[in-house]
């Protein structure tokens, strides 16, 4: 069993019910093909960094699951057909996952449902189950702020190469 993570962008102008329907459609594909869904994370409406099909907004959904590659094939086939999907990307997180390990993780995720929390999101192929809970936005934003001072000075250093770029 492999561990995958699929992010897809659906149209932002769908109603909440319709978006849930879209998500439901794809999660059912996974479960029908014996996949184990660890989590479904709705990031919500976001502004796209560039236009996709003349749209500047999209609804992001992340699905983290374990299963075989036929699931990915089936999912991507459907993504391609579906008009409501603007973009999708699937990433393999690890090659060999113990199904029992996944079950345990799903259980844990259920227990932690009350405080909204994001389970493993790292791309570590060596570790089948990453326990460390990566909290989403807030702490990371702070982390980036301090190094910023460091790289303010250096750009002046290799002058010959830099000018060559322009």
């Amino acid at each position, binding site marked *: 069993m492999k561990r995958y993570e699929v*992010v897809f*962008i659906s149209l932002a102008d769908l109603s909440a019910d319709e978006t849930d329907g879209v998500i439901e459609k794809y999660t059912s594909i996974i479960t029908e093909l014996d996949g184990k869904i660890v989590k479904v994370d709705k990031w919500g409406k*976001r502004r*796209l*960094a*560039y236009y*996709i099909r003349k749209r500047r907004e*999209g609804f*992001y959904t*992340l699905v983290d699951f374990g299963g075989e590659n036929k699931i990915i094939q089936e999912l991507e086939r459907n993504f391609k057909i579906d008009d409501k999907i603007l*973009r999708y*990307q699937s*990433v393999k997180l690890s090659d060999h996952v113990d199904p029992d390990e996944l079950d345990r993780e799903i259980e844990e995720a259920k227990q932690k449902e009350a405080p909204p929390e994001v389970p493993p*999101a*790292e*791309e570590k192929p060596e570790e089948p189950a990453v326990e460390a809970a*990566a909290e*989403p*936005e807030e702490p*990371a*934003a702070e*982390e*980036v702020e301090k*190094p*910023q001072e*460091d*790289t303010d000075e*250096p*750009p*002046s*250093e*290799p002058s010959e*190469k830099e000018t060559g770029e322009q």
Partner: protein
Amino acid sequence: MAYTRNSSRPRRRFFHRRKVCRFCADSSLKIDYKNADSLRFFLTERGKITPRRINGCCAKHQRELTVAIKRARTLALLPYAVTEG
């Protein structure tokens, strides 16, 4: 000859501080394509990936970083190019 004298002189006189890869220095920092805000720091205003000599990353983490940025780009979390004016 002026030429030989010139070459024997230390050419780089400006202060050069060896930067340490920030991902090596702080293992709590994770490179993740989903966290676009932290990746944005490694882009120029134009949306290009900063070279290693600028951001000071080690080869290993620069590689991870580029993969993450490219993944974030396909998901429209980060721009391919920023064109203005």
